[in-house]
């Protein structure tokens, strides 16, 4: 939030840009360094599984850690360079809990923006993947009233950035505005189980703003490449046509994810309410899922108490899937087929759950906020919920309480 236009910074930037040459100072050039971060501590009452905030996290609170710091904690550093009033560039590096357990920094965004007109801009490079309403700032703890975006909805899209292009076109009318955002590119999510790549990823997001109210409607599509389960499904393919049919039906590789998202945000100032709904279809073992949340809070001076309800439902019912028909196979193959069927049943098991959250954010000083939140997570009767590292003692239909204390800043 601190704009540095002093000659010292310009000179430094020019030195970096020109390798110490004798470039003249360009008109309107400025460099800005911004930072944000969150330190969050999370405790879960379920010891036989890990509560996680993002599918890429290899462990979390409950089984692995009594108090986990890797769920919400992160730090981000951003350099914004404005070359001319129309041409600017953003590079953001984030350090957060990665699939491999490290906090190695990653380049979250690195793109160049060109404003054809103040209403029409083009970006190229690594850009935010703006599918959900808070995608653009969900990692910036300070910008959010809650400690994390509702996992029932945000788990469905573990990808946050896209290597490609996007266009944004805004049509103001009176005090209102309509914005069309369209993107195209490719991306990948590095999960503990392996890499999931999205190719030909594209979408259109329509946003309508009238006064304090924002309505959002988006349609997205992405091809999927996921090699991690190839070995497992190859074993099915070894069982001839019936195995091949099962592999074709449930493998995630060479499939596509199609989603529709609907969002609403109303923020007149003293209070706010937001809601989001998503339906995402994958034509794989993940199936088709529907998820939504509503969240609302009031601003009472420095305190912002809020409540959130979120839930996820599987649209497709896989409970009738019997897997390979092993009758008539030689006994050793029967055993092997039964093992494969058990594995498949594990993948097909629903992860549906609902969460009620209540919390309060305190803006206790300048650029700092402190938030306390408790979540009551209720997994559906046939579901273990959206947890990691399930242990043998974990029962379906569990109820878990999660408590979080989180400290955020922006600079």
């Amino acid at each position: 939030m601190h704009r540095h236009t002093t000659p010292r910074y310009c000179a430094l930037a020019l030195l970096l840009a020109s390798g110490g040459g004798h470039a003249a100072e360009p008109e309107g050039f400025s460099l800005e360094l911004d930072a944000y971060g969150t330190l969050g501590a999370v405790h879960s009452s379920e010891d036989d599984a890990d509560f996680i905030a993002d599918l890429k996290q290899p462990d979390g609170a409950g089984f692995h850690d009594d108090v986990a710091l890797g769920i919400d904690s992160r730090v981000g550093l951003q350099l914004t360079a404005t070359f001319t009033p129309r041409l600017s560039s953003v590079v953001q590096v984030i350090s957060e809990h990665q699939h491999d357990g490290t906090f190695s920094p990653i380049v979250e965004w690195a793109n160049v923006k060109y404003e054809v007109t103040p209403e029409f801009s083009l970006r190229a490079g690594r850009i935010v993947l703006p599918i959900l309403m808070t995608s653009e700032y969900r990692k910036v703890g300070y910008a959010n009233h809650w400690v994390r975006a509702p996992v029932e909805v945000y788990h469905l899209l573990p990808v946050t950035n896209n290597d490609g292009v996007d266009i944004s076109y805004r049509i103001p009318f009176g005090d209102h505005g309509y914005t069309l955002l369209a993107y195209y590119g490719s991306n990948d999510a590095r999960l503990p189980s392996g890499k999931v790549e999205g190719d030909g990823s594209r979408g259109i997001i329509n946003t309508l703003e009238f006064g304090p109210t924002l309505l959002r409607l988006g349609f997205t599509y992405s091809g999927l490449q996921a090699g991690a389960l190839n070995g497992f499904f190859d074993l099915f393919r070894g069982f001839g046509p019936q195995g091949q049919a099962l592999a074709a039906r449930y493998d995630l590789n060479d499939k596509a994810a199609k989603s529709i998202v609907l969002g609403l945000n109303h923020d007149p100032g003293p209070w706010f309410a937001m809601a989001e709904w998503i339906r995402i279809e994958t034509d794989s073992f993940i199936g088709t899922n529907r998820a939504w949340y509503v969240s609302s809070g009031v601003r009472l001076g420095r305190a912002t108490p809020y409540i959130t309800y979120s839930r996820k439902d599987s649209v497709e019912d896989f409970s009738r899937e019997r897997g390979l028909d092993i009758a008539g196979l030689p006994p050793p193959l029967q055993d092997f087929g039964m093992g494969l069927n058990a594995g498949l049943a594990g993948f097909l098991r629903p992860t549906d759950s609902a969460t009620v959250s209540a919390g309060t954010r305190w803006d206790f000083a300048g650029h700092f906020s402190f938030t306390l939140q408790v979540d009551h997570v209720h997994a559906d009767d046939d579901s273990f919920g959206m947890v990691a590292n399930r242990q043998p003692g974990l029962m379906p239909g569990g109820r878990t309480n999660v408590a979080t204390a989180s400290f955020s800043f922006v600079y």
Partner: protein
Amino acid sequence: MKISLVLLIAWLMALNSDGASAEVVAVVSAQSTITALSPTEIADIFLGKRARLPGGGTAVPIDQAEDSPEREEFYVRYAGRTPVEMKMHWSKLIFTGRGQPPRQVRDAEAVKAALAAQPNAIGYLDRRYVDESLTVLE
């Protein structure tokens, strides 16, 4: 009787303190082609939601210092946003490269200087600093 007297005094004091608080107004240079903007247009320009002036030029909003009473009152009055809400607003936009907050200057005199230097600049200051070099947007 005593109680009503106390109440009357308290009420007069409240009125007085109200009258004493600064009135912040949005201003442009007297040389500017802009002569009128609605409060919503002004708020949208300062929130980064509107880039263009009615005449077609690119609006250049000028902020006062971050913790100044003028800044707080301006955003409460025009945008209905507290300082914390404004910080949250900009942290949503900055960290995706969607926008940068207005240029910030030290005080009312610096606002005047910035407006004089840039015909499309819009600022705000306490009404008592208004002089013939400025047009108040009302």
